[in-house]
């Protein structure tokens, strides 16, 4: 099992939340100080390098027009990390391909990073969060279909080596696909696909891609994994699903004692609570199934992608607290207090993830 260090490159120097409507989409970028931002990039990249030193792999993502994640072009940071690191696997989770106009360009970027890093890329694809459709001007209807066509097109671009091939699909058109460079890893880098519901997991399992889940908890995660395994088995891939196909992201804080771990974990929750986003950015029409959309219009119900502004923070906070506390609490059991500091992060990660992987 591998452990990964993930940072969203948040910009924390914000006015009080009651002074702005939304931390995403509409927060004016006059609140972004480029000098502070440059120092943050140094810090976050340094943290990834520490993670590599600790024997932990590296994960990054991208979001757009938001203070919560000032990495709107993850392939750029990935390219820097490809040169700054030597051993760590480099996971981008991921490319929001339903919002990218040219999947072949994404295939080129990822192949280039794979070559730059000499085969250390793990390439994730995501649908993108709902507040991203406005910044991308991307139609929220039929995103799932676009994502899968884009992913298949990217794999075709990575794996075609005998001159130009073409693609005339429902959403994307390329007459001449012949990318240089091609990926370092053969036939292509490992592919990860994120989901937070069981619906899409079967399809990911059928392709044997890595299933990435975020903050779905001890309660939500087993259903997603079960759906993945069902898809895997129905695609005649055998009965046993390798554990390295099932990934889970949690917030984690390790401390010298349980009390210290809990105190640190409470601070981590800032990231979950600092997500003030009004309803109309959370639920663009078509992003969630129609029945759920109807319940949201009614003014409640449904499993939120984000949630109503007032409820959103509370729900996110509760979800986050669940994970953070359990992980932090189990992060450093008393009988492991003699563990070398250098091994501490890795050990606590192993302990937490072993609980999830039994799900």
């Amino acid at each position, binding site marked *: 099992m591998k452990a990964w260090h993930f940072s969203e490159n948040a910009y924390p120097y914000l006015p009080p939340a009651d002074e702005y409507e939304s931390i995403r*989409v509409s927060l004016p970028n006059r609140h972004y100080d480029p000098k502070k931002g440059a120092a943050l990039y140094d810090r976050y990249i340094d943290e990834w390098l520490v993670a590599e030193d600790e024997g932990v792999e590296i994960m990054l993502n991208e979001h757009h027009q938001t203070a919560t994640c000032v990495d709107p072009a993850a392939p750029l940071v990935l390219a820097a990390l490809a040169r700054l690191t030597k051993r760590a696997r480099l996971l981008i989770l991921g490319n929001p391909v339903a919002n990218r106009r040219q999947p072949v360009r994404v295939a080129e970027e990822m192949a280039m990073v794979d070559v730059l890093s000499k085969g250390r890329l793990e390439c994730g694809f995501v649908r993108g969060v709902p507040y991203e459709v*406005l910044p991308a*001007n991307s*139609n*929220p*209807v*039929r995103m799932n279909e676009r994502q899968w066509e884009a992913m298949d097109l990217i794999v075709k671009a990575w794996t075609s080596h005998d001159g130009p091939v073409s693609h005339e699909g*429902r959403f994307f058109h390329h007459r001449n696909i012949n990318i240089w460079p091609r990926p370092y890893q053969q036939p292509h880098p490992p592919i990860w696909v994120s989901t937070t519901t069981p619906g899409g997991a079967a399809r990911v399992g059928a392709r044997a891609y890595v299933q990435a889940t975020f903050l779905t908890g001890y309660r939500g995660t087993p259903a997603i994994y079960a759906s993945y395994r069902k898809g895997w088995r129905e695609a005649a891939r055998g009965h046993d699903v390798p554990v390295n196909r099932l990934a889970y992201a949690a917030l984690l804080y390790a401390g010298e004692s349980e009390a210290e771990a809990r105190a640190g974990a409470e601070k981590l929750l800032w990231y979950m609570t600092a997500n003030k986003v*009004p*309803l*109309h*950015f959370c639920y*663009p*029409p*078509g992003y969630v199934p*129609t*029945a759920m*959309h*109807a319940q949201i*219009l*009614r*003014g409640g119900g449904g499993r939120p992608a984000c949630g109503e502004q007032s409820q959103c923070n509370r729900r996110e906070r509760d979800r986050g607290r669940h994970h953070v506390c359990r992980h932090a609490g189990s992060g450093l059991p008393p009988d492991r207090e003699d563990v070398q500091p250098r091994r501490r992060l890795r050990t606590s990660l192993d302990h937490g993830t072993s609980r999830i992987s039994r799900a």
Partner: protein
Amino acid sequence: MTVLAKPAEATAANMISIAGVELEVLERGGGAPILYLHGGAGIAPDVTFIDLLARRRRVIAPSHPGFGRSSLPDWLDSVDDIAHVYLELLDRLALTRTDVVGLSLGGWIAAELATKVPERIDRLVLIAPVGVKTGCPDQLDIPDIFAMPRDKLDRLRFHDPARNALDLAAMPDEELYIVARNRETLALLTWEPYMHNPKLKHRLHRVHLPALLLRGDSDGIVSAEYLARYAALLPQARIEVIARAGHLPQVEQRERTAAAILRFLDERQTAKRSGAGS
């Protein structure tokens, strides 16, 4: 509160199959035909208004693909696609000539249709239509209805939102599902380019027929300036304003809106008679 009619119960709607679309078509009244093209909120809020027109005319009112109970095939994703479906609908219903009334999104569909078969349309009524881009690139012609809270949207849509905004919380599940689905199809059709077809304004020169452009005086979606620029693209258009109405004058001022439409459509008879007498 505006009460939504239930199309399945209150009306006898036919299903007509065209190019993979199962089209729900409401037909009321008798006499010379009006093809009635509803706006982004679907046909349900307009049923009472349609009945007013149907006292004098035969009204044929399809629910657009993806609206009401009309299906939405995978291939369909534009207003132009819908206009092509309606070309076939004209043939199926043997409407060699008809008046067309289109509201908001339906006004856009009507304008597209008129550029394709102007010879089959007698008179055209566009109520608060969208569909063209007339202003400068750095300002939206139509406010972004997908990027604002519902209460703000209702203030833009209605002269009297307290009286006319839909009470979604109290709506039966089946109707609310249709409201949600209508909104999704509206997003599919209008997301990009936002609320317009860049080609349409270069095609409207073909619409050589009398056109009436209406808007509610309090409409916060379609501005007076926008409507004036729209009218200027049509060879024979004139503008009328409905007082104390917003973006849906057919809901807020039913009688006066119906009277304005019928008065305009009747001018054809007057023109014909005076033509015959001269």
